[in-house]
């Protein structure tokens, strides 16, 4: 799939679609969207859809960033607190490490 051959309206559609899909708890899609359309949004000579594409790209990027941050926080909290949480920690755990608390 290469964007250079896409007519601008299609680009916009695609970008928007990706953004929308990203709203279904799919930050990864957002990240991809941001990276993928970055050139289109910021490098290309301006065209009329570019403004919106830019908007979507920025939104996706921020969304993805927020998600990543949230996930990182959660993971750190879990790793630090798992033992303290006791039974809850274990029932939350998908892999419980062997041989240690």
């Amino acid at each position, binding site marked *: 799939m290469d964007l250079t051959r896409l007519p601008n309206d299609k680009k916009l559609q695609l970008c928007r679609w990706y953004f929308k899909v990203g709203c279904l708890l799919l930050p990864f899609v957002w990240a991809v969207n941001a990276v993928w359309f970055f050139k289109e949004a910021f490098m290309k000579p301006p065209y009329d859809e570019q403004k919106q594409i830019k908007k979507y790209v920025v939104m996706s990027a921020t969304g993805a960033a927020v998600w990543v941050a949230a996930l990182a926080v959660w993971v750190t909290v879990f790793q630090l607190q798992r033992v303290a949480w006791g*039974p809850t920690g*274990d*029932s939350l755990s*998908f*892999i419980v490490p*062997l*041989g*240690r*608390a």
Partner: protein
Amino acid sequence: MASFSYKVLLLILCTFTLAHSERLHEQIYSSIEGGAACFRRLNGTHQAGCSSADNGAVGVVHMIKEINDAQWLVQNGSAGPYMAVVSTVQFYDVIEIFMQQPENVAGILLYDNATDSPTAFSQESRCPNEYSSASGSTCSSTVAGGIVWNTKGTGLLRRDIPFPIFYLPQSKSDEIDKIQLCYEKFNLDKSNQKGNPLCSLQLNSFMFAAVNSEVCLRRSASSALLNPTKVCDPLGDNNVYYSLFPRTEETKSSKPVTLVTARIDTASLFDGVSPGAASSVVGMVTLLTAATTLSQLIPAKDAHLYEQNVLWTLFNGEAFDYIGSQRVAYDISKGMWPAAAPLSPADIRLHVEIGQIGGALSNTNNDSSWPFHAFVPYTNIIPEINEFLDMMTSNAKPYNTPVITPEFTMNLPPSSLHSFRRILKNVTESGELPEVLLADHSNTFTNLFYHSALDEYGKIYFSYKNLTISNTGVFISTDELLANGTLKQGDPQVKIARLATTLARTLYQTVTGSAYSGNISASAHLVDEMLYCFLQSQACRLIMAADYASGGGSSPPASAAPLYVGVAAWAGTAPVFAAHLLALLTGAQLPANRTVCDSLAEPGFSYYWLRGWNHSGVCIQTTMNMSAAVSPAFAITDYDLKSGVYSSWTESVWQAMSARVFVSAGGGGAGAAAAAGATVTVLAALLTYWLHRHADRIFAAPAASIVNDDAASGILRTVNC
């Protein structure tokens, strides 16, 4: 000249052959076989025992010859962490040093030195089963002073050890020599070990479970979706019981029983080596022999004549907070034991426990004396007990042994009585269920190897006489053996046989009400065989005879039966052997072939088709039976494992235990390689780049250029792919 030198080389080389073409791996590592690893057990609140990292613990070998070595290791060992190689003699002195400062200790390889063995060696706590002992026991492993039972105990069995420990028995001394060699080759210069190749050990005993039983059981239950992993199992096995007369629902109330108990199991820090000669085997063998003898004194068919019964019981898992006896006591309190005809505490006339009686044998191996102490945990006089003790003494008269000194104290040594006194508190303490404990020590153990890997047959001076058994299963009598000098007064066989006789006759007296006048006595020959079976080789005459005839003839290994209780998941061999021995030695042989035997079903009896003395197969009718020896903690639903009411021991699961010795690099090689590699690579890069860029100028056109585009496209058509 090249060719010439080459020829020379060939000549040189054809003279000696290059034999081994093994993979390099075998040259680097040499695995240490036959080591027994310390493993991890967990109770309701703690984890005990050892575990390595999951890819093994690696440390520099350091042979501990005296305490200073240990000091040096923990304080100023520079190339650490170290793997301390300690003999059983030093172990007691150095272990605390390591436990205090484990930072520099990667692990311990413990070996038993053939030449000098320690005078005492016990990893059990100073007060075994301290926290499940009944009220009134004053022993405390934490408080200094006061009498403790196991004076030499290090308590490692109950402590969390921060490093792995492997044990090498005497038979594996060659492995130690291997390590010694390697050690002397590399590690002797203690001052500058750092940065040099050093002889190292890797101990791998990674334990899956952690924290405590509650956590590990929880984790075993809840684990990943697709392939769950088990982390730990509850300890447990089977109890064995056998009543002189069959006990059925209708007869049980009429006949009060005398409960005679002993323990099957023992323990040790290391996996698979728990001989427990003095700790448990002597007691168990005494019980088995006594039961045999009594069954000869009183034939089972005379049941209707007497108003008394004797219930012989072997508890299992006693080493770990009295698993077996706790379960039995608990079941009695619930009126569920024995399953066929449950006992009520009122039915039990007297409870005689044969405790640890093997220790004294080591001190008194050259005379016939064998002092006993009967612990009577009552302040007031209990007639049954006094009567019993008197009868014992009188019955012991013929042989001026054993001497039994009563100890009227509430401070009972470790024994199953504790369970009964805790769980059946009201009846036992009041004396409705009178209890007495036979032991060979008054206030501290005479057995200095309690629950240790060194508690072997040698420690009770047992030497197997290897006498043949007649096809009818008749054993040579003790007196005959003494007469023909096969055995001496001091031999444990004789002593145990006499104790068994005394006990049997006493019980005869309690059952019949009249002293025994006949001359049937326990045979030291039987004791000899039995000790051999439990202490030296399972491939012994008795077990062969007592095995299932349908066993397929696969003879058990020629090693001591493992007496560690093991996990409840599968039954250990020891209780099975004990049970079958009871059946074979006490049961009635029926003239029935196999099919008939299997079909037989008379209440109060069970029927076994065993090999028999001439291995032709016999049908045995016996009252022997087994009951689960799993702690009530795991039977009661929603029991709080932390409460500490019942034994809550679990054993961790592990994958592999291995040890190997090798030389660890000092880093010189790596450094050299890195330096050379970097320089060469950079050099090559520069040179190639230069030639690449100036190919056309350096290499005479149109001669070869290492790279240029014309050439590249030229090749395009020289090869078509």
